[in-house]
């Protein structure tokens, strides 16, 4: 097997196992499912709206991820740095890029697993009516991409510090910015004081318009490119930070 791939999968497998060898994975998945059920059924009133679509389910994901994904990502590098295992990892022919890709893949797949486990919501909608399954699939795609962007941001803040709490808080702040930058109450407020191009510029950083388009079932290359660029940018920044920290 190609050495790059070999190292990436070895690191990814170790991270994946680390989630499930500790209670983290189970606690996270249970809380995630409970909260997404709570928001969908109690807050968004899935049953009362009388519509067989999953808008009420997906619209809360940016907020859920904002809090929960940093909890999954915060240990990725902070723990390696605190315990010194980073010195081991980077002296056994593993490069920072291979290691961070492995970690990213593991954390993202873990989020995708949690997302897949929300399938009963889809079953409920199908049982009660006939939702547009294309729209549901596109919504899931959007949510998975959104989770990937959060994971990448969380991994970046994790590389910045050996303190997991700081990493968590920084990741939440970045997540909050990326949500609020395009949130109508915020853009309206900004529009009163700033020129239109600036408001649009800031708003275009936001997850929201891209995620909403995917929720509506519109798979636009520009939205996919947006998520891909957020992920690539965050991974690249992580690599820069790591190279700086380890003196490479």
């Amino acid at each position, binding site marked *: 097997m190609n050495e790059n791939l070999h190292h990436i999968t070895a690191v990814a497998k170790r991270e994946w196992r680390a989630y499930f060898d500790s209670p983290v994975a189970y606690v996270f998945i249970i809380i995630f499912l409970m909260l997404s059920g709570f928001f969908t059924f109690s807050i968004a009133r899935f049953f009362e709206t009388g519509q067989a679509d999953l808008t009420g389910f997906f619209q809360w994901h940016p907020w859920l991820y904002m809090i929960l994904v940093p909890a999954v990502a915060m240990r990725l590098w902070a723990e390696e740095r605190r315990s*010194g295992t980073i010195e081991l990892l980077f002296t056994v022919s593993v490069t920072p890029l291979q290691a961070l890709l492995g970690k990213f893949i593991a954390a993202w797949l873990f989020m995708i697993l949690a997302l897949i486990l929300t399938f009963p919501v889809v079953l409920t909608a199908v049982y009660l009516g006939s939702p547009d399954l294309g729209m549901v699939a596109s919504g899931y795609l959007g949510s998975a991409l959104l989770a990937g962007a959060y994971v990448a941001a969380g991994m970046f803040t994790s590389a910045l510090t050996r303190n997991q709490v700081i990493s968590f808080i920084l990741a939440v702040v970045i997540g909050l910015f990326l949500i609020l930058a395009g949130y109508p109450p915020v853009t309206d407020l900004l529009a009163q004081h700033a020129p239109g191009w600036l408001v649009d510029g800031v708003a275009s950083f936001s997850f929201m318009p891209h995620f909403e388009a995917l929720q509506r079932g519109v798979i636009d290359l520009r939205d996919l490119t947006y998520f891909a660029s957020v992920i690539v940018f965050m991974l690249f920044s992580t690599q820069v930070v790591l190279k700086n920290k380890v003196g490479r």
Partner: protein
Amino acid sequence: MINASGLIKNFGYRRAVDDVSFEAQKGAVVGILGPNGAGKTTTIRMVAGFLVPDAGTVWVKGIDVAADPVAAQKHIGYMPETTPLYEDMTVSGFLRFLAEVRGFSGAERQRRVDEVIERCFLQPVRNQSIDTLSKGYRQRTCFAQTLLHDPDILLLDEPTEGLDPNQKQVVRDMIREMSKEKVIMLSTHVLEEVEAICTRAIIISAGKVVADDQPSVLKTRSTRYNAVTLDVEGEGIPAILETFPNIGKIQTLSTDGNRSRLFLLPKLGKPIAADVLETAREKRWKLFDLKVDEGRLDDVFRRITTTEDIREAE
């Protein structure tokens, strides 16, 4: 196999390693000695490819470590000072992960893991979670990891730190056993260890190499080298000995009538025992005991790492 030249590493305004050069060939067990903070760990980290030197180069089997750490690290087994381990893994799980990273898979991977577990006496804890291990087992687990790919070069940063005497002996025996076909570089501040296993000692102080020689040669730089401890009975002995040109200082340790125990310090490490013995025979002194000092490494170590001016004078 290892060749370092002109290594410099700064941390902020502090120069941790200042123009360090050395080389080591197969069969060598090189001990890096020095007070805490002298730059031992930083030097080893640069050889291991974890830190990039600000100036200078390390070649490992002809590979420039800073330019191609991935290739160089294939020949290196490295045990960091803090013995970092993934706490949530089991001993065998940890070793399997590292064997995989080292490029082994399937049956070959399992064979390698089993082999190092046996070699490092880890069988009793192989399925135990690492966070429950004692210090000695942690040390050996981290050591085992360095052997997985049977590297030509072992870099061990304080391999026996914090172990009990039996465990230290085990680690030393392992190092000695492997030294024939490898280059082993270890840092330590335990001087007895250097005498016990190292073929060469490099003493680093304030980031500079201040001595680089065989331990037995280094010991000759001790002020006590060739000093004589004497238990003797006879008339006016100290007065006679004082006339010897090579004896610098005479200390009387104890006296009992004409019998006394004396400590004779030579000038500049010159041999004096033969002269003393000959005089004793001529004057018919009664000699109970005579010991010649081989010199002490801790003495040398203290002198060259504390005062610069003594080194200049030599």
